């Protein structure tokens, strides 16, 4: 009896805590959504209240004036290409770093570690000059280079620690059967990494999608610019039209949320698959 009450109380506490916590996580986004439906005047007078009338003009303005669809396409291209490259390159590097001991292994590991510590702003000017010298400014692929380079460290660390924690026996058996290195890496090890791939996929997609300073500095052509730059154009010199900015933010955030919700199912699948297999 006592045990049962204790269990019920624990259950109540855990669930209540989690519900409250989840609310704090989602409320700000909901606030952003309904604020985007207010007029500038309504918003300046009371930032919390619900809109009296749904005011879709902000969205129309964001798409029409802000050319959000163009920025959207560019962001999508940059993010998708970067993510694919980050996953493939990061996986390969991490595999060798985690499975083999070779000369310079630790050195290479630390060099990649560096990348996570570098404050991006300190590289802006040198990188700008470098890109200028090599005629890499203002190209379709310009932003992919930094996105991949800055996405690699995180991917490598997550892959490396994951691969290290998986058993080596299958690979060893495959080697003894005469499998080539590439078959083993991509056909055997890669699938095992599925859960961590989902994590890296989401994180690197987000980084590329939200990245700002490089997009600002390395591109000049309007037709190549990305969403965050487009969003920032809603800031005036001395004024900000918040509801319109919110509408633009909703447009920017919504696809990521959708992608996440879609791929999160994969993660759960991967999880159950992993635990069954052991």
């Amino acid at each position, binding site marked *: 009896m006592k045990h049962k009450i204790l269990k019920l109380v624990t259950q109540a506490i855990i669930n209540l805590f989690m519900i409250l916590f989840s609310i704090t996580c989602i409320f700000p986004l909901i606030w952003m959504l309904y604020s985007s439906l207010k007029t500038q005047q309504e918003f300046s007078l009371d930032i919390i209240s619900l809109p009296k009338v749904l005011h879709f003009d902000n969205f129309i303005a964001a798409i029409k004036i802000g050319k959000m669809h163009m920025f959207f396409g560019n962001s999508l291209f940059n993010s998708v290409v970067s993510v694919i490259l980050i996953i493939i390159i990061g996986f390969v590097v991490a595999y060798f770093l985690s499975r083999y001991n070779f000369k310079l292994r630790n050195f290479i590991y630390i060099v990649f570690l560096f990348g996570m510590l570098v404050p991006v702003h300190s590289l802006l000017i040198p990188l700008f000059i470098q890109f200028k010298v090599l005629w890499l400014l203002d190209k379709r692929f310009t932003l992919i280079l930094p996105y991949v380079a800055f996405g690699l460290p995180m991917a490598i660390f997550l892959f490396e620690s994951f691969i290290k924690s998986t058993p080596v026996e299958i690979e060893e058996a495959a080697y003894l059967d005469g499998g080539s290195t590439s078959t083993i890496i991509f056909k055997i090890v890669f699938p095992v990494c599925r859960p961590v791939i989902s994590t890296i996929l989401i994180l690197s997609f987000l980084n590329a999608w939200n990245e700002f300073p490089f997009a600002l500095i390395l591109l000049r052509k309007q037709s190549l610019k990305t969403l965050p*730059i487009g969003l920032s154009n809603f800031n005036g010199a001395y004024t900000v039209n918040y509801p319109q900015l919110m509408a633009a933010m909703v447009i920017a955030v919504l696809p990521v949320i959708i992608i996440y919700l879609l791929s999160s199912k994969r993660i759960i699948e991967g999880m159950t698959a992993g635990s069954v297999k052991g």
Partner: protein
Amino acid sequence: MRKALKCLSLLIAITMVFSLAACGSTNGGETGPTDSSAVQGTGGAKAPVTLSFTHMFPTEDTEGNSIAFHKALEKFKSENPNVTINEEPLSHDNYETKVRTLAAGNELPDIFIVKGSMTSMFIQNKLINPVDDVINSDPEWKEAFLQGAFDDFVVDGKSYGIPFQMLNTHLIYYNKQLLNDAGITAFPTTWTEFLEAINKLKAKGLTPISLGNKGNWVAESCILSTLGDRYTGTDWFRSIKEKKGAKFTDPEFISALRALQELAKMGAFNTDLNSIDNMQQKTAYYNGKAAMFMEGNWAVSNVINDAPKEIQDNTELALLPAVDGGKGDAMANSAGAAWAYNVNSSLTGDKLATAYKVLKAVTDADYATISVESNAFPASNPKTIDKSKLAPLSIKYLDLSAKIKPVPIYDAQLSADLIQVMNTGLQQLLIDSITPEDLAKKIQAEYEK
């Protein structure tokens, strides 16, 4: 492995040498490939000219300056079909970051906008040339400019920018009704009266002055630039700027800092003054919870567009009253252009001439007419003003601005590092975590570096 590393390090070395060398070389003006889809000019025998133009007027921006800029530029484009302008619009903050990077990489576009405080660095790196010759060669253009419009860009007697706006960074927007209710029938004309008025408003449970200094320039640009002049007079500032002996530790300047701190100490401002921005400082005013706020003339159009009708009708404009024993004029007001256009120093021939033509289109008297009609305040006199097109508050402002005596805006004329120290210090001053004397010493120390 070792071989690969060797190749790698060689590659790194080569790129680095090139990148570093690029800092030293002068760029040839051909800034990137031109847009192939650009429509080439058809009219007349004029050769096609392509110009790159980075500015801070995105079409999303609904401020008067931006609206006027686009109208004027469109007009220019339709009249000059042979000219292709590759625009890069950026928001204000991003523009500053980008233009600094472009300057560091010697990769500035053909036409761009410089800030007063950037000019000396741009000149030092030979990125811009004076504009005096071209302005002087066109008397009609030259004479339209307002008095003092070029001041922020003058170095060694030469002007390094063509201004498009005239800012009065300090104005007191006050709610006549709220002041009346508190027993203040006319706006105070002496400092003592001003302090009394603040106490009366406080007693009413109102925030006397709404202040949003998160961006840390508001207290300096919109208050101290004018308050300082009330105490020090303008000669002091000239002496500071030309390094002719005046010091930030002079008693007059310290008095100004002390006066600002006293306002904060007596509760003239809201307590969250360092965590809200200038947009939010107006919110309290629009709600009728604050009786005044201090901001530049750009806020005129904000009040017109965003304030509820009742508040807008009760809004009047004033300046800080004279201070006891101050050396400054009571009608002095921090004013200037702050930002101005210039062209890449590497431009020559046809490109250069066309670039100046573009700039004339976005700064001359015709532009000024469009600008005034968009509730913005241009750096030139419009040929005609149709007052019926203007909101009442705009008219009140134009009446007041005619009487104003322009004095320098600190952040438009002093160097960026000095302003950084001053602005950061003012945030501390306003919450009483630094004394006026210590702050003055800190600013002076940076000044002497």
